[in-house]
């Protein structure tokens, strides 16, 4: 058995988009237009994910994250390149591949809307042909990880967003898939629900050694769950390493906070490789009186923001 859950080699994905014209005249012209342009959503991405790993797949909106996830699940066919998920080419045997993966899209639910959660579970059990024994074991595991009793007999449409997301994650793990894709699972959730969901994902990953590929915009998720992160921007992979490396990968940044005479704080981000923090303080002190100084380590969020805003280039 190979140790790789996902292997992507030079994967590209182009979309053909009609060039729309402006105004009513343009709209009429578009009716007959053959004027297509090609948009590259994913450009030459090579990526390997090991079994049992939780990786954070990050990137600004429209970077190509969802497109990559869809290619890995088999819903989208890559324009070129090779993808293997658990040794299978996902888009060629989509149905078969689906038996071994689980998917959660944070914005929509795969559960049966008007039925109690337990009915959705039973249906998924039969749909994925899970043995009764394994099913019961899984439910037991769920019980030990989260308090599912209050939601088990509740119709999905009556659930809060948090409960629904929790249910969706449980549903995605029910058939004990080798790999689970979580697309923004904590979107729109409150702080306590977020931490519950993070604990649940960690617990399931640990118990079942499930590979988890997570896309998110919440750096709290990344800090809590991922050892390794992959960042893509405009379809190109720009970072792929440990989260520890990230902080000094693009320069060793520090946040410097200065308190002025009028009690206002001034904040600046300083790259220690190019500028000396002490120099900045001295410089500022010449201009005006400084009452207090704070030097903070940069947060993941800020590093990521810098990368998204073009700090990487």
């Amino acid at each position, binding site marked *: 058995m190979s140790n790789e859950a996902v292997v992507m080699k030079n994967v590209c994905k182009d*979309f*053909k988009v009609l060039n729309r014209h402006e105004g009513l005249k343009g709209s009429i012209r578009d009716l007959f237009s053959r004027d297509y342009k090609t948009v590259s959503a994913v450009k030459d991405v090579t990526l390997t994910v090991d079994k049992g790993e939780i990786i954070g797949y990050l990137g600004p909106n429209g970077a190509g994250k969802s*497109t990559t996830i*869809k290619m890995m*699940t*088999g*819903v*989208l*066919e890559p324009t070129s390149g090779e993808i293997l998920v658990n040794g299978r080419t996902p*888009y060629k045997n*989509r*149905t*078969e591949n*689906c*038996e071994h*993966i689980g*998917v959660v*899209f944070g914005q*929509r639910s*795969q559960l*049966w*809307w*008007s*039925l109690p959660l337990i*009915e*959705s579970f*039973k*249906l998924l059990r*039969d*749909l*994925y*042909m899970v043995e009764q024994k394994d099913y019961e074991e899984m439910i037991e595991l769920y019980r030990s990880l989260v308090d599912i009793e209050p939601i088990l007999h509740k119709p999905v449409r009556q659930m809060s967003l948090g409960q629904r997301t929790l249910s969706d994650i449980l549903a995605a793990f029910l058939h004990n898939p080798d790999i689970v894709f979580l697309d923004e699972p904590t979107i729109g959730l409150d702080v306590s629900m977020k931490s519950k969901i993070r604990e649940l994902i960690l617990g399931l990953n640990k118990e079942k050694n499930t590979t988890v590929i997570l896309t998110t915009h919440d750096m709290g998720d990344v800090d809590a769950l991922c050892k390794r992160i992959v960042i893509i921007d405009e379809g190109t992979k720009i970072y792929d390493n440990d989260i520890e490396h990230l902080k000094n990968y693009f320069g060793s940044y520090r946040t410097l906070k200065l308190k002025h005479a009028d009690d206002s704080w001034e904040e600046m981000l300083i790259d220690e490789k190019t500028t000396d923090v002490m120099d900045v303080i001295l410089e500022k002190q010449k201009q005006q009186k400084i009452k207090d100084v704070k030097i903070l380590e940069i947060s993941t969020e800020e590093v990521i923001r810098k990368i998204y805003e073009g700090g990487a280039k």
Partner: protein
Amino acid sequence: MNPKRLLSITRAGIMEALHFRLGIFVTLFANLIYLVLVYYLWKAIYASSGSDVVNGMSFTDTMIYLILATALFNFLEMFVVWDMSRSIQSGKIVLDLLKPMRFRKYTFWSYTGNHVVQFVLTFIPTFIVVMIVTKGAIPMGLNLLWFIIATVMALLINYNIEMMVAPICLFTESTWGINIVKETIVLLLSGASIPLAFFPEKARLIVSYLPFRAVYDIPLSILLGKSGSDTWSGLINLFALQCAWLIVLTIAGNLFWNHAVKKITVNGG
């Protein structure tokens, strides 16, 4: 093929359909209003024709036919076109494509629960009422069994028509228009709104070979012992027509869907 899977999906479908029980009562009520209208309309038609039997059908025959056609319509009605175009627009189709079952099969079975509920709660009561009111105008015998077989075939044919129209909506991006066109064509040419016996000679000949007839007219004719279904050769003819169209439409539906799924997977819908 795993029967447990299919039963499980049907079971969930029944539970979901029963959840919207109010909708079923509203359907029954709407049918009642529609049937009152149909009753007076045809009463006027028969009165103006001056004879009791028009085109080989008595007033009672016509009424039974139309009432049962309405009940059958409620039972056969599918919303594949609506549901699919909505899920393509919202992107929910991705989740359906990620089920460990072929999409076409999964979609079909996700409707069966609703069919079962509609059959039991609208078709059977209507049938019983018609039987009591007409005091046995519907022959009772083997024709009931043939009717059930023909209805299952009609269900499959109807599903394949839906599966052909749904991908068209994907290309035109206009669901409402296409769906109305489909609905009107099916209802008119299948004999659900006007019994085919009332069509002009030439039109009837053409319509009798089209697939739409296989959805409403054939099951009803078999039930009522019309269109030669009271003889073995007539019955076999009707079933042969259904089978032929089922095969043709299944292949065509497959082609249309495969083309659509290609568009979804290549261009993201």
